C-alpha cells in the first residue's frame, strides 16, 4: 500500500512540476516554425529579420462605404484617432500633413542626399548653367512650383530628389486623401510601434484601428473596415489556433467522455480514464517547453489528439478482463500483480536504446504472449516503441514545428503508457470493477468473424489503391509552402488587393549586401547601385530601391559636403555666374545660407529618419543581426513594350553581380527559396518516414520472429496507409507535411490494433475458459472510436494544418482497425491453459 501511495505521490509531483514548466513557457503562434530553416545561419537570420522588421509592422487599412463628399473628413479623422491611440509610429493617408516630416527632411538635407552635388556643379560654370535652367523653369508651365524655392534652391536639388523618388503613377487621391483606383475605398497605411513578432502588441494595434473606426461606423451605417498586413495574419492565425484548440479540445473531450460514460457507466472509471490523458498532455507540453523553450499553438492543437490516444491505453487496461479473473473481486490484485511482473519489461522497453529495445521486446513478447497482464503489457510496450521510432524520424526533420510535434507525441505516449501501467492500478480502489463488456465483445467477435470473409476483396481494394498511388505519386504531394499557410485564402486575397492599391509590393527578388558595419553595407549598396543604374539605363532592369539612396553612406555624404564651397567663395562665384541673367546674385543669399548650413550640419543618420515614411522604408531595407548589417536592394522587373513587366533574368543577375570590397553581394528570392526548401524538406521528411517505417518493421520482425505473423501485423498498417492516400487522391487533395505526420500516427495507433489482434489469435480469441469474452475486442473498438472522435473533431478545424492531420488520422485509424480485423488470423480454438500462466 505504501508503494501505491508513493507512486501516486510521485505522479502528482510530476504533474505539478510539468504544470509549473508549462506555465512559464511562452506560447507562440508564429508560423515561421513551420517554415524550413534556410541553409545558412546568415540567411536564416536575415529572413527572420525581414519577418520582424519594418515591413512586418505595416497595417493596411481600407474603409468602404463612406459617401464621396465625406471621405476626406473620414480619412483625416481616422488618422488623427490612430495617432492619438499611441499604437502607431506613423499613419499615412496621403494627406499633406502626413508627409510634412518627409518633405522637411528632404529639403533640409538636400545637399547630402542629392547625387548631383559635385564640385563641378558648384563652380562658376556649373552654377551659371543651373541658374539659366532655373529661370527657364520659372517661365514654364510649372514655374509656379519652383518660384517659392528658387532663392533657396536655385540648383533644383529638391525637384531632382523628388524626381528620383518618383516612378510615375502614384496613388489616386480624392480631396487630398488616398483612395483605391476605383475611387471608392479609403486607404491608409499605419506603422505599428509594436514589433512584427509581438503578437499581443499587434493585436492591440488592430484593436486601436477598430476603435478609431467606430465613429465612422456610427455615422455611416454602410461603412466597412478592412485591415490587412503581417500583424493581422499573425493575430488571426493565433486567434484561430487558440479558438480551435479550445473549442475542439472541449468538443473532443466531451464526446470522448460521453463514450466513456456509455462504456463504463461509472464516474470513477471515467475519472481513471483521464489519468493517462492528463499525464500525456502535461508530459508532452512540458517536455517541449523544456527542450525548445517555447510552446507553439499548433503543437498544443496537436496535443488534443493525444487525449484520444492516451484514452486508448486506459480503455485497453480497464475494459479488458484477462481470463481467469472473470468474477472481478481479484481485479485490482491482478493489476497489481501484473504491475510487479511487468515492471522490468516496461522499464527496459522505454528506457533502452532502440537496438536493445528490440531484443528486450523480442524476449518479452516472444517468451509469453499468452493470456494475462504480462502479454498485454508487452503488446502495449511494443506499440509505444513503434510509435516512438516513427516520430523519432521526424525529430530529425528541418522543421522546428515538426520536431516539436514529434517530441510532444513521444513524451506524451510514453507518459500515457507509464501512467496506465503504474498510476492507474495504484489509484484504482480495491474491489473496483468496471462494467463487464463481455456481451458486447461476443457480438463484436461474431462481426469480426464475418468480416474475415472479406479478406480477398479488401486485398484487391488495397491493390487498386496501391496502383492508383503509384501512378499518381507525382501529384500526391503539394510542394507549395502555401499549403501550410494558416492564413485563409480570403485574407490573402484582401491583402493582395490592398497591397496592389497602395503599390506596396511584397518582397520578391532582392540583392543583399552584407558587411561588418552599416557604413560598409551602405557603401557596398552604393557601388551596387551604380552598377544597377547602368542596367536600368540599358532596360535590363525596371527600377530598384536601395537604402543608400535615402541614407547615403557617410563617405558619400562627406564627399558631397566637401563639394560645397564656403560662403565668400560661393558669393563670388554667384556674382560671376549671374552675369547676363535677369536674376541678381543678391537675391540668392538664402541659397548661400542653406549651403553653409549643410556644410556645418552633421551627417544624416538613421535616427534622424525616424517619424518619416522614408525612414520606414530605409529601416525595412537595412537590417542588423549578430555583428552584421545587410542592405537589401529590392529589384523591379523592366517594363515591357506592352503593359506587363518582363520577368527578371535572375540567372543573369546572379552571374553578373558586381564584386564589392568588404561586403558580400548575393541575390535572394525569399518566396522561391522557401518553396524550394519546403519541397526539399517535404521529400526529406517522406524519406525519413519511410526509414522510420522500415525500422518499425525490423523491430516487429525481431520481436515476433515469425514472417507470417510479421506480415499479419504489418499488412493492415500498410494497407491503411495506402487506402488513406487513395482516398485523398480521389478527393483531389494534395498532401502536405501534416498529412505525413498523420500517416505516421496511423501506423503508430494501428500497430496497437494489429498487435492486439495477433494476441487475440494466439490467446484463443479473447475467450475465457468459461466461454465468456474478455473485452479485448470491445476495448479496441472503443479506442478506435476515441481516435476517430479526437481526430475527426480536429478535421473540422479552420487551421489547414490541424484539419489535414485530423482527417488523415481519423480515416486512416478507422481503416487500420477494419483491415486488422479483416486480415486477422482466425483464433485458435481454446485449449486448456498452458502451465506457468502469467495471470493467476
Amino acid at each position, binding site marked *: 500500500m505504501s508503494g501505491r501511495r508513493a507512486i501516486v505521490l510521485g505522479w502528482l509531483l510530476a504533474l505539478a512540476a510539468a504544470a509549473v514548466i508549462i506555465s512559464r513557457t511562452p506560447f507562440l503562434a508564429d508560423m515561421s516554425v513551420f517554415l524550413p530553416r534556410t541553409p545558412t545561419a546568415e540567411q536564416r537570420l536575415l529572413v527572420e529579420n525581414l519577418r520582424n522588421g519594418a515591413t512586418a509592422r505595416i497595417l493596411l487599412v481600407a474603409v468602404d462605404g463612406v459617401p464621396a463628399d465625406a471621405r476626406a473628413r473620414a480619412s483625416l479623422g481616422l488618422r488623427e484617432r490612430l495617432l492619438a491611440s499611441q499604437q502607431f509610429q506613423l499613419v*499615412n493617408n*496621403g494627406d*499633406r500633413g502626413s*508627409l510634412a516630416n*518627409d*518633405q522637411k527632411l*528632404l529639403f533640409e538635407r538636400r545637399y547630402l542626399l542629392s547625387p548631383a552635388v559635385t564640385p563641378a556643379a558648384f563652380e562658376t560654370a556649373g552654377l551659371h548653367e543651373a541658374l539659366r535652367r532655373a*529661370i*527657364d523653369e*520659372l*517661365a*514654364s*508651365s*510649372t*514655374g*509656379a*512650383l519652383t*518660384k517659392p524655392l*528658387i*532663392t533657396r534652391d536655385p540648383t533644383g536639388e*529638391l*525637384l531632382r530628389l*523628388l*524626381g*528620383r*523618388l*518618383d*516612378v*510615375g*503613377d*502614384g*496613388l*489616386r*487621391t*480624392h*480631396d*487630398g486623401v488616398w483612395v483605391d483606383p476605383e*475611387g471608392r475605398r479609403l486607404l491608409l*497605411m499605419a506603422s505599428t510601434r509594436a514589433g512584427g513578432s509581438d503578437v499581443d502588441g499587434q493585436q492591440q494595434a488592430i484593436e486601436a484601428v477598430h476603435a478609431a473606426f467606430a465613429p465612422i461606423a456610427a455615422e455611416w451605417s454602410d461603412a466597412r473596415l478592412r485591415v490587412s498586413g503581417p500583424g493581422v495574419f499573425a493575430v488571426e492565425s493565433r486567434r484561430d489556433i487558440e479558438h480551435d484548440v479550445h473549442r475542439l479540445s472541449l468538443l473532443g473531450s466531451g464526446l470522448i467522455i460521453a463514450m466513456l460514460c456509455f462504456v463504463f457507466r461509472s464516474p470513477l472509471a471515467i475519472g481513471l480514464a483521464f489519468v493517462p490523458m492528463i499525464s500525456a498532455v502535461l508530459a508532452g507540453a512540458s517536455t517541449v517547453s523544456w527542450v525548445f523553450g517555447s510552446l507553439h499553438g499548433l503543437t498544443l492543437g496537436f496535443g488534443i489528439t493525444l487525449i484520444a490516444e492516451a484514452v486508448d491505453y486506459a480503455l485497453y487496461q480497464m475494459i479488458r478482463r484477462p481470463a481467469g479473473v472473470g468474477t472481478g473481486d481479484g481485479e485490482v490484485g491482478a493489476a497489481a500483480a501484473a504491475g510487479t511482473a511487468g515492471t522490468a519489461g516496461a522499464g527496459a522497453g522505454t528506457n533502452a536504446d532502440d537496438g536493445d529495445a528490440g531484443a528486450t521486446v523480442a524476449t518479452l513478447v516472444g517468451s509469453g504472449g499468452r493470456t494475462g497482464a504480462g502479454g498485454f503489457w508487452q503488446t502495449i510496450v511494443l506499440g509505444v516503441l513503434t510509435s516512438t521510432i516513427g516520430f523519432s524520424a521526424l525529430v530529425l526533420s528541418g522543421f522546428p514545428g515538426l520536431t516539436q510535434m514529434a517530441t510532444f507525441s513521444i513524451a506524451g505516449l510514453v507518459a500515457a503508457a507509464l501512467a496506465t501501467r503504474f498510476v492507474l492500478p495504484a489509484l484504482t480502489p480495491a474491489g473496483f470493477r468496471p462494467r463487464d463488456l463481455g456481451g458486447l465483445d461476443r457480438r463484436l467477435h461474431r462481426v469480426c468473424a464475418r468480416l474475415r470473409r472479406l479478406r480477398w476483396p479488401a486485398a484487391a481494394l488495397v491493390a487498386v489503391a496501391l496502383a492508383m498511388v503509384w501512378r499518381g505519386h507525382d501529384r500526391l504531394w503539394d510542394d507549395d509552402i502555401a499549403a501550410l499557410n494558416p492564413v485563409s485564402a480570403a485574407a490573402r486575397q484582401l491583402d493582395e488587393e490592398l497591397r496592389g492599391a497602395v*503599390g*506596396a*509590393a511584397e518582397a520578391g527578388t532582392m540583392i543583399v549586401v552584407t558587411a561588418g558595419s552599416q557604413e560598409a553595407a551602405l557603401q557596398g549598396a552604393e557601388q551596387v547601385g551604380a552598377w544597377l543604374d547602368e542596367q536600368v539605363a540599358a532596360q535590363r532592369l525596371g*527600377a*530598384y*530601391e*536601395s537604402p543608400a*539612396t*535615402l541614407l547615403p553612406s557617410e563617405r558619400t555624404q562627406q564627399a558631397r559636403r566637401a563639394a560645397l564651397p564656403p560662403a565668400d567663395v560661393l558669393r563670388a562665384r554667384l556674382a560671376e555666374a549671374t552675369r547676363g541673367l*535677369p*536674376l*541678381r546674385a543678391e*537675391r540668392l543669399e538664402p541659397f548661400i545660407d542653406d549651403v553653409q548650413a549643410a556644410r556645418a550640419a552633421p551627417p544624416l543618420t538613421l535616427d534622424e529618419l525616424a517619424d518619416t*515614411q*522614408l525612414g*520606414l*522604408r530605409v529601416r525595412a531595407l537595412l537590417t542588423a543581426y549578430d555583428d552584421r548589417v545587410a542592405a537589401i536592394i*529590392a529589384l*523591379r522587373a523592366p517594363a515591357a513594350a506592352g503593359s506587363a513587366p518582363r520577368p527578371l533574368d535572375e540567372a543573369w543577375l546572379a552571374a553578373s553581380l558586381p564584386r564589392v570590397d568588404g561586403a558580400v553581394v548575393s541575390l535572394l528570392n525569399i518566396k522561391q527559396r522557401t518553396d524550394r526548401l519546403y519541397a526539399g524538406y517535404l521529400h526529406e521528411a517522406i524519406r525519413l518516414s519511410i526509414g522510420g517505417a522500415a525500422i518499425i518493421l525490423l523491430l516487429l520482425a525481431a520481436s515476433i520472429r515469425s514472417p507470417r505473423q510479421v506480415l499479419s501485423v504489418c499488412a493492415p498498417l500498410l494497407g491503411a496507409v495506402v487506402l488513406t492516400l487513395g482516398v485523398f487522391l480521389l478527393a483531389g487533395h494534395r498532401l502536405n507535411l501534416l498529412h505525413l505526420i498523420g500517416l505516421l500516427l496511423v501506423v503508430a495507433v494501428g500497430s496497437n490494433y494489429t498487435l492486439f489482434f495477433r494476441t487475440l489469435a494466439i490467446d484463443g480469441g479473447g475467450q475465457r475458459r468459461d466461454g465468456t469474452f474478455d473485452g479485448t475486442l470491445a476495448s479496441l473498438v472503443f479506442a478506435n472510436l476515441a481516435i476517430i472522435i479526437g481526430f475527426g473533431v480536429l478535421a473540422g478545424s479552420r487551421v489547414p494544418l490541424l484539419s489535414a492531420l485530423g482527417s488523415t488520422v481519423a480515416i486512416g485509424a478507422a481503416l487500420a482497425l477494419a483491415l486488422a480485423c479483416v486480415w486477422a488470423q482466425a483464433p485458435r480454438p481454446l485449449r486448456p491453459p498452458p502451465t506457468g500462466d502469467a495471470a493467476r
Partner: protein
Amino acid sequence: MTSGSERRDARPARRALIGAIAAVGATAAIALATIGPRHAWAQPATAAAGGWDLTRLLDEMSRRKRTRARFVERQFLALLDEPVDASGELSFDAPDKLVKRTISPRPELLSVDGDQVRVERPGLARTMSLQQLPEVAPLIESLRATLNGDRQALETVFDVGLEGRRDAWRMTLRPHARAGASLPRRIVLGGAGNEVRQVEIEQADGDRSVMRILDGR
C-alpha cells in the same frame, strides 16, 4: 529609391506642380473658349442694348468644336529683373481636349485630355489623372462645362463679371473664397467682338502674366 512610399512622398510636390499646370491650362481653356469665329459676332451690339450677356456669350462658345491659335506670353515676376517671354500654340477640341504647346524659349507640351493631364518636355514626360488634383479638378471641369455652355458649372468656381460691349468686353473671373488656394487671384479675359485678344492672370503672390492670343481660327 524608386517606389513604394517614396512615390507617395513626392505627391504633394507633384500636386503643386500639377496645380500650376492646371491653372495655366484652365486659363488657356478660357482663352480658347472665348475665341469665336468672326461670323458669330457679326452684328455688333452693346451688352445692355441687344440682349447680349454672359449667357449669350457662353452659348456662342459652346458651339465651337475645334480651335487653333498662337500665343505670346509675358510674365512679370518679382524675383527677376526682367519679364520673361514665351510663345507657342493653343488648341481645343470638343468636348474636353486642351493643349498648350510652348515653342520658345524652351519646347514644352501641356495637355488636358479627358481625365489625363500630360506634361512633356526634354527629359520629362509625365501623365497623371485629373482626379489626383482635387484642388484644380473642379476648375478644369467647370471650365469644360463652360465650353459646353454650362454657365452654372462655371459659376460654382468663379464669380464671373462681364463688362463692356460686344466689340470690347472684359470678363473677370475671381475664384470663390472656398476654392483652392493654388488658384490665381484673378483672371481677366479681354476680347473684341468675337475674339479673345488677351488673358491676364494675377497670381496669389502678386506675380502676373499677360498672354496675347493671335490668329484664332
